[in-house]
């Protein structure tokens, strides 16, 4: 019973410790990954927009728009990019990847080169970045990145971390149980032995072999057993 209590307290302590670790590492992970991914996401988006803008220049000036569309179709295969459109210097869209059509918010909206958040009806929420083509003299390239992409990656990362911590937690519980049992069992025997010395006729005592084994232990339990026996031996004549 005493062993069980000791065990429960240890388990509770471990549970608290793991909870603290899980919460703190998750919070740290979310903060770090969110900051890193968001920065990377934005940087990549800008780099892609810049790349499209650079690649588009010659095509817009010298080639057919089907070539421009072919370029957009290839970039549109990049994970996270939901849409791309290119406008001329009047703001008219020259090529895009929208299906079933250009959303009204974009068709009629103001062209912005700054990063903007867009909510497109029936499509979703996006972060749109743009890059001017030849300083805007020719037009601009715009790409829409899925806004939930970072959150989705975070969810995945946190989910994996929680899964890992759960496995470690279960393994720790098992290990702790074994270790505590290793300590608690001799302690329980020591308790029984102490009671046996006080009341030798009480039932449930240790066998002479078990007493011998207890006294021969090299650890603290063995030392305590020997001290208890010594005290018992010393106090016995005084009582008699």
């Amino acid at each position, binding site marked *: 019973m005493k062993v069980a209590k000791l065990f429960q307290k240890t388990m509770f302590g471990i549970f608290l410790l793991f909870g603290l670790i899980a919460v703190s590492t998750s919070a740290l992970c979310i903060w770090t990954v969110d900051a890193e991914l968001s920065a990377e996401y934005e940087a990549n988006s800008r780099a892609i927009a810049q790349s499209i803008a650079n690649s588009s220049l010659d095509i817009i000036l010298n*080639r*057919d*728009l*089907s*070539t*421009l*569309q*072919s370029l957009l*179709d290839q970039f549109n295969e990049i994970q996270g990019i939901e849409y791309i459109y290119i406008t001329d210097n009047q703001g008219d869209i020259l*090529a895009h*990847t*929208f*299906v*079933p*059509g*250009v959303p009204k918010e974009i068709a009629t909206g103001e062209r912005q080169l700054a990063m903007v958040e867009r909510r497109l009806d029936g499509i979703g929420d996006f972060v749109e970045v743009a890059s001017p083509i030849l300083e805007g003299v020719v037009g601009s390239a715009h790409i829409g990145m899925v806004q939930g992409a970072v959150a989705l990656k975070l969810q995945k990362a946190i989910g994996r971390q929680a899964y890992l911590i759960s496995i470690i937690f279960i393994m720790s519980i098992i290990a702790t149980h074994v270790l505590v049992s290793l300590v608690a069992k001799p302690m329980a025997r020591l308790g029984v032995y102490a009671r046996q010395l006080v009341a030798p006729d009480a039932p449930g005592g240790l066998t002479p072999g078990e007493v011998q084994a207890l006294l021969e232990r090299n650890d603290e339990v063995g030392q305590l057993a020997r001290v208890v026996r010594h005290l018992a031996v010393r106090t016995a004549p005084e009582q008699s």
Partner: protein
Amino acid sequence: MVTTAIAAVVMASGLGAFQAGEGISGSEIVVGMSGPFTGASRSLGIELYRGSLAYFTEINRRGGVNGRTISIKAYDDGYQPEAAVKNTIRLMLEDQVFTLFNYVGTPTVTRVLPLLKSYDGLRFRLFAAFTGSQPQREAPYDRVAINYRASNRQETEGLVSNFRGIGRTRVAVFYQADSYGRSGWAGVRSALASQNQKIVGEATYARGTAYTSSLRRQVAILQESKPDVVISIGAYEACAAFIRDARRAELNVPIANVSFVGSESMLELLKAEGAADGRDYTANLVTSQVVPSYEDVAIPVVKEYRELMAEHAATVTPPSLWARDYRPLARSFVSLEGFINAKLLVEVLKRLGPSPSRSQMAGAVASMQNLELGTGHSVSFAADRNQGSDAVFYATVEQGRFVALRDWKGWRK
């Protein structure tokens, strides 16, 4: 994966360093084709192949060209650019065909063109691709491509011009969301811009959209713009689905398609839907074509095509390339174009003489001036002109079949 493997073999064998075989033996000339033999656009690849094979079969029966028979080595790309690129590498480096022939589609061809440029030393030409887009008609790819057909731009300009002539000036566009659709869209935009007008509405669909898909959202977008006419730049399954949904939504203005659509396959779908629904989905349809009507037997090439397609019907239907559930069309604009492409290639091969080589091909093509292939329109090339025909024809549906359209007044607004 395949591309990398082939490239590795080529590098290891040193083939990349010198000219590969010419695809010609003492008895055979092999030409290579990549096209959609499966998927939502399969009819285009299959019918183009069948039309060409009908003519080649006849030429081979007569002893071939300078004693050599002509065969087509064909691979399926499903109308997907990556597959087309892999097929092209295979045809050039592994099969070492004489020329690339009858390629289908703008998104595929626009990705293949840089490949031809990369292997410029092998002198491969893309002969008579089934696409009207601009890239293979303009620098820097005009040197590696030889086109028979009129361009998308010419087709759409013709449609816009004819509709404008009957007072239909509010033009909306329904198009495939890729380089093919953009090419047609640009043609319409350009034609309208010359009249100081703009496209009043536009809607797109994803390449590979099947007939069973709903295109009601696209119809709703275009309905808002209150168009006088809709010009579709797409493939037959999606375009048929659009017409079906447009008519159901009471968008009854004329709907025009360009030649790439695969007119008969589209018509078959609409006729079957109409029979099931008890309504006519084939009214107010116009198509622009780059070959004459296959119903007009007064045109010599049409007469020849009909005879040879009937005579070699069994030969030109090898099922190994496509699923057995495909029902070949007895006649179609697409197979007629394939037939004419084959005639043009045979003419080039004749001009190349008994020892043809790829490097001589461009010169042989450029030498063709006012060539009569029996279409009623001569074909001319030059050193700075890599498109043989500018002819655009128009057709409409009457009594369940396409007939030549000569009078547009019936659709006057």
